[in-house]
């Protein structure tokens, strides 16, 4: 089996190929198929147009306007929203917070999910239970999760402070100290989201044929060598996919922040989407909020493009 074949058997690859348009394997299409296709596609297309394409285009239009949602007309203001934003201190601090959050969450998240996935890929007892347990936070509602974590982080009665009191560290005011609050947010976010990445990594690991490891063993490779030379390179497409997706979702974080810290203390956990929300739904400055949303969009596109560029040469036969 060649390397390329191994990659193609990767489940992530299958996932990606679902989105590719491919010709019907049965050859030519019948007329009835066409009618059926239209029938089945119409609801999706309508939903896509109304709830995805229209808002995307409309908010781009709005970012050059001033509109408070109540009135029927929006005033054209050119690039005013963008210049005002780039001149405001608040915007840069929000951007910085988002950056800290993303670069704190993504590596931690990926490392943890990879370790857990590898551990659970072994033949151990209670594997299914553990996998479910690690995945559970993903499906818990963020509000409920935040309530639990508020208790864990409580400076007086919290579990975390109780735990670290044995280490001889003084009590930390997790949610009311600007440095600690970001840290607290990152920990909770990793706990909440690493389960889904763990599942993706598990799928990736199962796609690596056992024969490679057997061959490596015969050649005398140890566990570490196997990990660095076989597991990691063959997981690269999965890793890449997870990295892009985690980065995007970290940049878009909102609900956890809203319920855990409300952007406080002192705005230290106020992230970009929180900023968008505040201007859109509290101050009704839809134009300004849309401009911020588009900045986020551009940042995500650029970051993703850089990653695709960089990874393209390293992963053959994918993307």
């Amino acid at each position: 089996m060649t390397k390329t074949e191994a990659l193609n058997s990767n489940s992530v690859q299958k996932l990606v190929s679902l989105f590719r348009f491919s010709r019907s394997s049965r050859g030519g299409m019948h007329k009835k198929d066409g009618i059926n296709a239209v029938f089945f596609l119409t609801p999706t297309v309508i939903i896509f147009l109304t709830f995805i394409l229209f808002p995307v285009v409309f908010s781009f239009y709005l970012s050059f306007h001033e509109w408070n949602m109540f009135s029927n007309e929006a005033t054209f203001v050119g690039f005013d929203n963008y210049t005002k934003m780039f001149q405001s201190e608040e915007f840069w601090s929000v951007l910085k917070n988002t950056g800290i959050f993303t670069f704190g969450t993504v590596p931690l998240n990926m490392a943890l999910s990879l370790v857990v996935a590898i551990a659970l890929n072994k033949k151990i007892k209670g594997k299914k239970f553990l996998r479910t347990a690690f995945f559970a936070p993903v499906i818990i509602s963020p509000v409920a999760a935040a309530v639990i974590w508020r208790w864990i982080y409580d400076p007086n009665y919290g579990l975390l402070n109780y735990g670290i009191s044995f280490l001889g560290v003084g009590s930390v005011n997790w949610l009311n100290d600007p440095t600690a609050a970001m840290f607290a947010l990152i920990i909770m976010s990793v706990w909440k989201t690493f389960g889904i990445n763990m599942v993706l990594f598990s799928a990736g690991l199962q796609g690596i044929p056992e024969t490679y490891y057997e061959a490596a063993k015969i050649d005398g490779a140890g566990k570490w060598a196997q990990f660095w030379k076989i597991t990691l390179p063959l997981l690269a497409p999965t890793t890449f996919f997870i990295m892009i997706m985690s980065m995007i979702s970290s940049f878009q974080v909102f609900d956890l922040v809203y319920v855990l810290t409300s952007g406080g203390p002192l705005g230290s956990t106020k992230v970009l989407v929180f900023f968008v929300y505040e201007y859109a739904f509290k101050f009704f400055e839809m134009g300004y909020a849309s401009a911020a949303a588009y900045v986020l969009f551009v940042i995500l596109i650029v970051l993703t493009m850089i990653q695709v560029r960089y990874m393209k040469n390293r992963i053959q036969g994918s993307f």
Partner: protein
Amino acid sequence: MKKLIILIIVSIIFINSCGGDEKNDDKKTVIFWHSFVSSTVPALNALIEDFEKTHPDINIEAQYIPSGDALVQKLITSIQSETAPDISWLHAHFMEDLVQADAIYKMEKFIKGPNGISEADLNDIYPALLQYASWRGTLYSMPMEATNLALLYNKDMFRAAGLDPERPPQNWDELVEYSKKLTFDKDGDGKNEQTGLFLPVYPAAGPLSGWMVWQFHPYLWQAGGYKINLAQTEVIYNDEAGIKALRLWKKIYHDLDLNVFTSDYDVAFASRNLAMAMDGPWNLPRYEEILTGMDWAFAPLPSGPEKKATIVGGEYLAIFKQSEHPEAAWAFIKWIIQPETQAKWAMTSGYLPIRRAVKEVPEFKQYLEDNPNFKVFIDQMEFGQAERPIDYGGMEIMRHIADAIEKSTVGNQDVQEALNESAKLSNKVLNEANQKHK
């Protein structure tokens, strides 16, 4: 094909049955949006029932909409899609947008109309409420009920600390002194088992920041200050009075280690971990139910260096231009603001009446005698103030004030510096907004 035809027929029947729900034509239906909490709903239903008895031609349909952002968002979509209610509950801070969108009637149209009310009636309503109900001096809504802030305190804890339980703090010095005396760490582990006073310091960017600034107002006024000048050209909350008020908060916040006080104040009060807190009459019925076996009372807010003051709030009813029966909607509002209705509404809901004449209603007089806590709030209405209006950019200015409070308490920044920084940003908002609306 057969199936498709059946599907179409079924959907036509379904759509028709949803749309045409026509009752007898002579009865006018008035849709009324409100955000009353569930404990107030029985009182509201009784109120509506009374109204419908005396006005058989009008049918009031009360619909609950969650308060705050949800109400605003729902109003926006309903106005855009021409499905606005006849009457809705409003808060003063989004009146500006509704007026700008030409969505609500001026009250003058009804007050001076055939079914109007007299000048004397209008003047009987507390001026602070009429100020909130107006935008730029024009009345766009009518108050439905009033609230204000008083001091909730635990008399047992006063006794235990050697304080007179019948003499709550009368001024700022006593507030500082008492709150310190009422705070203690029994077992000496560095954590307070009992906290003397709760100050509502919340993240400035969060959903409770408006609530924090609202409660800061009385202290600003007590020191003789205001948020903004009357011409609305400049914010003035960073003057001497503002500095004094915020210094008081900062001192109490640090004296009592409120940065590690993480419980909700009402829970802490009920579980006997908190001695004093600011609170409103809306919680009175609930407290009477749950605070049993505890000697507690409400007292007026302590007076400041300049004067006595508390903040008045309320909910306001506006009539929407999309309404098909504006006159019927007005009949409901007119009926609600009558002294007799107000008396009954206050006694059943726990809200304060909007006008002075209510105090002359016999049942209400008796009620006040039986409910001294409620009377504290009624008496406070005499020195209750309304926030000075900010026609444009009010929400952003509120955020900047919240920032100053958070920075000087949680962030321990110098009060004057925090207020000056905040005022600079507020003035920028104000200038830009005023320029735009010239």
